[in-house]
């Protein structure tokens, strides 16, 4: 018997628009997927729905005011963003930050990494189809961490606590004790999420072997952070180009084997354990008292003319600040090299050839922040 193909059942390419308002795009991101059956043939990402000119506005602000825009650009890893910006200005001004300020910076930055990765774990669980459970596991942990941030900085989300040269003000007296308390919660929350997702059979089947990226591809596309390490490149700026006081701690850099979505998830979970370890080491080494700003701090922040590219390891990857100064109290040009932007540019090559349902997982595994993409 010869089966005849019905021309009405021919599969044709069909465009599907996703976004800019879609619950799985983690913000206002739009992609137009061309699908053939369930296979993705082409992806056209559209960004810029949140382009609000942080770089332009920071050219009109002095160095202190720019810190607030760093917060609002990278609103899940505010301390990392502030740190990268402050390091750039400090390098140009040749300021030496006191030890105590450096340790407090490290503690807060790593706690921020925890809260950012909790957000990732919650949102990624929802992408994978865990109805809200992962989110309700992750968000109380974020609240515990945000409580400490609020006690220290006075705000829940936009901290503006790191200043050029040091910190804005001294931490509360019970800071060390509070961080210890919160770390207990975080470790428990991490275990909860680990138990919920990591060995879950459906979750593993959903994540493994999609969005694979080899090490060469990852380097060529300029990926950084967990995306790069999942592809097998053991590269972490905290270890390989240590800034601040990161060279004084012992921690491991987790590296993936396959470069797929599951590896990226595992690396973030392992990074959280390492962050807890770093915080505990930093709390032990934290000088009990001492200055938090340099002794010869100038009254006005003025940099000599010059340029510098500073970079920190934010939870999403390499957060770089290219600062060009012509002298004076304002940057002449300030480019924020955001990890989300560079990671997202690889979306097209990662998704083409995959199934439609996996596109959401691949996008979720990038852990993008849309304000960071569009700046």
């Amino acid at each position, binding site marked *: 018997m010869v089966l005849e193909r019905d021309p009405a059942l021919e599969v044709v390419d069909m465009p599907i628009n996703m976004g800019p308002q879609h619950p799985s795009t983690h*913000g*206002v991101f739009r992609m137009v997927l061309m699908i053939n059956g369930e296979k993705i043939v082409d992806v056209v990402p559209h960004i810029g*729905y949140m382009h609000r000119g942080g770089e332009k506005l920071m050219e009109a602000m002095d160095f202190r005011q720019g810190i607030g825009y760093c917060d609002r650009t990278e609103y899940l890893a505010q301390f990392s963003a502030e740190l990268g910006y402050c390091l750039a200005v400090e390098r140009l001004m040749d300021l030496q930050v006191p030890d105590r300020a450096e340790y407090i910076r490290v503690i807060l930055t790593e706690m921020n990494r925890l809260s950012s990765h909790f957000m990732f774990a919650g949102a990624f669980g929802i992408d994978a189809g865990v109805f809200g459970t992962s*989110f309700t596991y992750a*968000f109380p942990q974020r609240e515990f961490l945000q409580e400490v941030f609020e006690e220290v900085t006075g705000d829940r989300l936009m901290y503006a606590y790191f200043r050029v040269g040091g910190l804005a003000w001294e931490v509360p007296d019970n800071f060390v004790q509070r961080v210890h308390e919160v770390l207990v919660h975080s470790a428990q929350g991490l275990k909860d999420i680990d138990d919920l997702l990591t060995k879950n059979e459906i979750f593993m089947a959903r994540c493994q072997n999609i969005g694979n990226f080899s090490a060469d591809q990852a380097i060529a596309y300029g990926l950084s952070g967990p995306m790069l390490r999942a592809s097998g490149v053991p590269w972490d700026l905290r270890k390989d180009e240590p800034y601040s006081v990161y060279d004084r701690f012992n921690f491991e850099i987790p590296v993936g084997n396959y470069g797929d979505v599951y590896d990226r998830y595992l690396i973030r979970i392992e990074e959280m354990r390492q962050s807890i370890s770093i915080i505990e080491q930093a709390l032990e080494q934290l000088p009990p008292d001492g200055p938090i700003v340099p002794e010869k701090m100038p009254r006005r922040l003025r940099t000599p003319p010059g340029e510098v590219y500073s970079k920190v390891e934010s939870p999403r990857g390499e957060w770089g600040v290219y600062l060009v100064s012509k002298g004076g109290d304002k940057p002449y040009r300030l480019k924020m090299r955001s990890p989300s932007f560079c990671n997202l540019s690889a979306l097209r090559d990662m998704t083409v050839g995959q199934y439609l349902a996996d596109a959401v997982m691949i996008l979720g595994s990038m852990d993008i922040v849309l304000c960071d993409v569009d700046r």
Partner: protein
Amino acid sequence: MTAQKAAPPALPEKQIEGAPVVAPQREQTGIERELERLTPVPYEPGVALYRQILPGMLQVPADAVLALSRKSSLWPMTFGLACCAIEMIATFMSRHDLDRFGIVPWPSPRQSDVMIVSGTVTKKMAPAVKLLYEQMPNPKWVIAMGACATNGGPYTRYDRVLQGVDKIIPVDVYVPGCPPRPEALIDGMLALQHKIMEERNK
């Protein structure tokens, strides 16, 4: 019974059986004030509520019933724009728990009542925001959350940013802050509930 029916009174008896002659002077509680506002029946303290309200129940205006039911189940569209979206999610989550007020996030505009504009609206995003607003069924309300949605906030001087979402859609409640705390958003939701009751017959 039959004798009473045979002689119908012109008006129902205002005097309720068993009511004390002199009402004790005390401050009204919240539910009492609300009932007094809703029902044309004068409130008589010291008597079981149902005995007072049931006779007047049919006289409650239908718009008040509708407004009461609307304000008790506000479904906001989950519409995260920028940094404020994180605080909006935090408000929905277990610590602050907007479900207490019957406010449940809903991911589609077709079934939602409230749009929380949480973040900066750029000129590129503005047509999409307007389209989403038009997709929502009436009655619908808008909460402008944060400084950016109110007037552009820290980004107001950049020319690709809309200086406030009220340039394109009508806004009912403005919540200040950058970003507003979850408590502030809850306060904004309660203010919207109050506004729905206030505007019930307009």
